[in-house]
Each structure stands twice: as structure tokens, then as C-alpha cells.
């Protein structure tokens, strides 16, 4: 039942990404050329809702359904957020897809995106392989 709920949240998330055109190569180009507000609107409203809900979770000390205390996520700094971030940005401009949209594009029937996805898996694997030798 719990697992079905994760699947369900994923379906809604994927539907919103797709119908909101956040997986559209065209929208991504429009965004990177600052020629439209659409993608920025999606980002800003998503982050606002996320931030508001984290604030409420903290304020009312809400627990998860298992009774676990919800701790606001922390993300540590390492140089990879810049180096890796730039490399991901390059790929985003080419493919028009972040990892979430890769799954959604395949689902949308753009089956050739499976090649992009396999290549992204290979990129992940290559990072894993080189990780001890890369500046962190």
C-alpha cells in the first residue's frame, strides 16, 4: 500500500512535469534565452510551495505516517555542486531534460530518449568510477 503511494506521487509528479511542459526541449531553450516566464514560474511556485510546507511541518512539529520526526533536509557544500552543476547544465541545454524529465520523456513516447537515459546511466557509472580521483 505504501509502495503504491510512492508510485502514485510519482504519477502526479510526472503528469505535472509533462502537462506543465517542464520536460519540453522547446521550453528549456526559451528559459535559457530568457524569452519566457513559464519555466521560471514553475520553479518559483514549486519552491514556494515546498518552502511553505517545510515551514508548516516544522512549526507544527509534524511526524511522518510512521510517527518518525521529520527533519528538514540539509545539503552540504562541496566543490562538486559547482563543477558537477555546470556539467549537468551543459547536458540540460542539449537534451532539454533533467533526470526526472528523462523518465517522463520516455513515458511520453519519445522512445529514443532511452538512449539519452542509458548514456546518463553511463555518465553516473563513470562518475562513480572516477570519484576517488576527482576534486570534491
Amino acid at each position, binding site marked *: 500500500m505504501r509502495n503504491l503511494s*510512492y*508510485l502514485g*506521487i510519482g*504519477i*502526479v*509528479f*510526472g503528469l*505535472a*512535469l509533462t502537462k*506543465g*511542459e*517542464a*520536460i519540453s*526541449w*522547446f*521550453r528549456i531553450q*526559451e528559459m*535559457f534565452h530568457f*524569452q*519566457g*516566464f*513559464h519555466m521560471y*514560474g514553475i520553479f518559483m511556485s514549486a519552491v*514556494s*510551495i*515546498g518552502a511553505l*510546507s517545510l515551514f508548516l511541518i516544522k512549526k507544527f512539529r509534524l511526524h511522518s505516517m*510512521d510517527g518518525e520526526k*521529520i527533519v528538514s533536509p540539509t*545539503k552540504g*557544500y562541496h566543490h562538486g*555542486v559547482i563543477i*558537477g*552543476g555546470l556539467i*549537468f*547544465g551543459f*547536458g540540460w*541545454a*542539449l*537534451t532539454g531534460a*533533467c*533526470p*526526472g524529465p528523462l*523518465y517522463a*520523456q*520516455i513515458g*511520453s*513516447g*519519445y522512445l*529514443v530518449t532511452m538512449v*539519452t537515459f542509458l*548514456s*546518463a546511466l*553511463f*555518465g*553516473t*557509472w563513470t*562518475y*562513480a568510477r572516477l570519484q*576517488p580521483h576527482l576534486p570534491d
Partner: protein
Amino acid sequence: MELLYKPWPWYVAGPIIGLSVPALLLLGNKKLGVSSTMRQICAACVPSGIPFLQYDWKKDSWNLLFVFGILIGGFIGGTLLANPNPVMISQNTVNLLASQGVKDVNGLLPTELFNWQTLLSLKGLLLMVAGGFMVGFGTRYARGCTSGHGILGLSALQWPSLVSTISFFVGGILFSHFVLPHILAL
């Protein structure tokens, strides 16, 4: 009925995407993130004795169900409820892309660039194979993508996520202005 096929405005899609943050936390104390699933798939299928891939990936198997859901959501939104009309991007973008040879703005991806034939050309290899590689390599190096850093990290007011999101955009802006035009001209 027609409404079902129309694309959603940003103020509908954005808040729904944002609601995945509390939904996952409240349901099972899970943190939104997509790129980590590619590490899980690597760890499950080709661990190859690499230390970075030796971890208990099964513990996060909820995430694999989540991304399978994204795929189904893409099927519903992009196939069953596909928008029959061209994407309503700005006329400036339409003109810019047309000047670079991308004339068809129907669907979610330009099928003239992303298809099985172009995959055998340098252009297609760069767009799909090199592009995909950089998405996988970069997100793992940054330990997060637009979901984990861009939405969850920013929602939690984590400054490293802000640095990372700015880097995503700087990389994308530089590439789409200065590199992509040359690739499209191939």
C-alpha cells in the same frame, strides 16, 4: 474535454510539483530526489566493485517506484492526453530556433533532431549521447539535480543547493547560447 489535452499553466504545474516535497516527507519521511535513482540502477546492475556503488541501494527502493510513476505520468500526460497543438513558447524563441534550423515546434522534443536516424550522425550523438552523459555525470558529481537541489534543497533554504542551482543555470545558459547553435548547424 478539450481542457484535458491543454498544457497546464505554470501556476498549476509548479505548485503540484512543489507538493511532492511534503507528500513524500509525510508519507514516509522520504526526500525528493531523482538523479540518485541512476546511482541505484548502476549499483544494482553494474556495481563492478566500485566503492561508490557499494551501498544498500535496496533501502531506497521507494525511489525506483517514484520514478516509475514519473514514467507513467509522462505516458498519461504525453501520450493519452498529448497536446495536439504546437508548444506556446515565445515568438522570439520560435524565430531563434527557426534561424538555427529547428522549424517544427510540435510535441515535447524536436523530432527532427531526436530520432533514431540522427542518432547515427555527429549531431545526434552530441545531443543525445554526450548530452545524456553530462546529465548523469554532472548530477552525481553535484549530488543532486533540479529535484534534489533545485526544489527540495531550495525549499529547505540550503545555500549549497542555491550554489548548485545557479551552476545548473549558468552551464545551461552558456551552452545554449554559445555551443548549441554550432551543434545544430552540423
